[in-house]
């Protein structure tokens, strides 16, 4: 019994301090987001995921940055300029600071989470714009779980999982802090699949994402993510079911990869 307990604690310890051996500094992934209605594709926005090195006087952090910008033809109708960033420990991908700076068709919102992992607290700051252009702040302290992450670091954390050790049907839960609320996201490994992408034909892990207690993503196993089945685990394709049609995210280019 003692032996089992030891193995169990060792495994738990391993999963918590999982080393980052997937994501490198200076990686840049470019995606094109489109709307698909019965086979007719309409391009909407360009999504970029970049990593870079940030040095402070005490430590070195990794900056994970995601930006979304609508294509020119949409700018007069609904202009989106979103910025999501997370500053993480480059070795373990544990987040220390998260920022979400979004501007969507005249709507502006800024969110900032400052993590205190020892006290399991997040200092959250919300900034919104009034109609006359002035801003107002809202400060809050949010209690979090030990494994809670933000949306950006979760995305990168998923890429760092040992999917090659998992069997089809295996699933894992993640706790994501979004809009000051902890949400549980379930990731299920479905199968291996070879799909053709802009960066060549790739063998991929097909994963299904679902959010507990939310109807943002509809249907079961219809919100899918394809990660290349190599050491880089690049997200090459994602598909989301929305009330009318599908939203798609396709890779355009991938540079600065680790392997």
């Amino acid at each position: 019994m003692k032996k089992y307990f030891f193995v169990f604690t060792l495994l738990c310890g391993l999963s918590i301090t999982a080393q980052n051996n997937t994501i490198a500094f200076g990686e840049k992934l470019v995606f094109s987001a489109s709307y698909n209605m019965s086979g007719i594709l309409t391009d909407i926005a360009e999504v970029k995921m970049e990593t870079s090195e940030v040095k402070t006087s005490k430590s070195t952090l990794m900056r994970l940055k995601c930006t979304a910008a609508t294509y020119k033809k949409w700018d007069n109708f609904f202009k989106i300029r979103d910025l999501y960033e997370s500053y993480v420990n480059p070795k373990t991908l544990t987040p220390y600071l998260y920022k979400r700076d979004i501007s969507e068709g005249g709507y502006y919102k800024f969110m900032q989470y400052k993590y205190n992992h020892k006290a399991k607290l997040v200092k959250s700051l919300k900034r919104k714009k009034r109609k006359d252009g002035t801003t107002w702040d809202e400060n809050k302290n949010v209690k979090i779980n030990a494994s809670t992450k933000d949306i950006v670091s979760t995305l990168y954390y998923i890429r760092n999982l040992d999917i090659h050790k998992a069997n089809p049907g295996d699933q894992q839960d993640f706790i994501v802090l979004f809009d000051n609320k902890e949400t549980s996201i379930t990731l299920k490994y479905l199968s291996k699949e070879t799909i053709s992408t802009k960066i060549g034909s790739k063998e991929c892990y097909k994963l299904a994402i679902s959010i507990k207690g939310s109807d943002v993503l509809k249907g079961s196993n219809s919100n899918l993510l394809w990660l290349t089945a190599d050491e880089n685990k690049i997200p090459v394709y994602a598909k989301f079911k929305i009330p009318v049609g599908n939203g798609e995210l396709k890779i355009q280019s991938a540079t600065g990869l680790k392997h």
Partner: protein
Amino acid sequence: MGKKLIIILGFIAAVLAVILAVTPLSNLAVIPIIVAFVCGLLIIFMSKKDKTKTKSIQYIFLMVIIALALTIYKSIYYTSEVGDIEQLEQRDEENLEDSKELLEDIDIDEDL
């Protein structure tokens, strides 16, 4: 009765086609264009049978032609290009500078 219904359907489809063709969702205009075109053909066929003249055919076809021309023009000349991102880049820079200050007093715990 049936003819009236087709005329109404054809009109709605044609108007929808023009509206969609003007918006960035111009690719989707193809569906109502086809519907309106088929309705137009049906009306011609029915009018020939009845030996009556219907003006609505002209309007439907005119709108179909406008929508089709716009859709084709857009699909050829509009490329997927990102507009000005100066403001975004500026916010990006500001956030990075601000973050560096905020992170200055943070100690990274190697165990986490």
